[in-house]
């Protein structure tokens, strides 16, 4: 039963990956739609970022002094100026670890 559910979930996921790529042709999207689609990364990824930073494992909002907020801010600043993905991730993680292991321990 669980296998069947996984296969159905996999098919649904695949269909959503495939539908627009395979079935949309260039002239189906007008210039206005294309202009809006330019914003897709900015319109989608914060929905992954914000809950992962501001909401804890139990579904509650974190406190304003939570190390994750500081880590995210450091990552934004380092990422903005370095334009480097590894530097961004490491800066966020290290500043987060510094707070939880050194300052708050």
């Amino acid at each position, binding site marked *: 039963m*669980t*296998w069947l*559910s*996984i296969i*159905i*979930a*996999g098919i*649904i*996921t*695949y269909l*959503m*990956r*495939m*539908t*627009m*790529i*395979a079935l*949309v*042709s*260039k002239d189906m*999207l007008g210039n*206005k739609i*294309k202009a*809006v*689609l330019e*914003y*897709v*990364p*900015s*319109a*989608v*990824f*914060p*929905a*992954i*970022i*914000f*809950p*992962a930073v501001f*909401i804890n494992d139990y*579904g509650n*909002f974190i406190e304003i002094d939570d190390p*994750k907020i500081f*880590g*995210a801010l450091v*990552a*934004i600043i380092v*990422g*903005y100026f370095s334009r*480097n*993905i*590894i530097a*961004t*991730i*490491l800066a*966020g*993680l290290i500043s*987060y*670890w510094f707070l*939880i292991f050194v300052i708050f321990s």
Partner: protein
Amino acid sequence: MFSKKKLFTKGMIDVAPHMLSVIPFGIICGAIGIELGFSPYLVYGMSFIIFGGASQIVFLQLLSGGASSLVAVTSVGVINSRHLLYGAVLSEYLEKMSFIKKLLISYLVVDQGFAESNKFFKKNKTEKFLHYHLIGTGSTLWICWQIATLAGIILGSFVPEELGLKFAIPLTFIAIVVQDLKKIDHVIVMITCGLSSLLFFNAPFKSYIIISPIIALFVAALILRLKK
């Protein structure tokens, strides 16, 4: 004009830094599946059949928490519905591919691969074999994801939980969007999406993950209208 091989390699290199978060997340994902009491084959099967990080964890957590299969499958569908948006963006660049190739390449599209290939596509619209870049990002993510979840399944959570490596996931996505903070219209769209995701976080089937992008895209359309 780049060769196919060059584009493929470029894709691999462009997405490689994200492995810093994808690999620990894969290990966590595999280990959680085993901890929740599922068979190793099943936990691994998901990485192959669904191939979608967060949705795999949600699926197993829902089932082990006593939710029905219908709820679990629906949640995976809702979480992964954002791929419709990725597909719409990519369709413009992949148009010249044959239908069969489009069907095959679709399996490989995931968040970080979409993000990095889309950035490359925007700068190199005239390249003939653009899709090799997407194959490069997609197959790199696929291989690392398979190995990482397998490692988590076999070795258990050998990544100490105290390290909080799940936090690498938002950091990876911060790295993807951070350069767009230079543009005020993008900042408005991002804040709209982020605040909506917090507001709708408790909406059923994790639907905040598609509701907030839709709201944000409406705001984007509004901005475009006002700009004129």
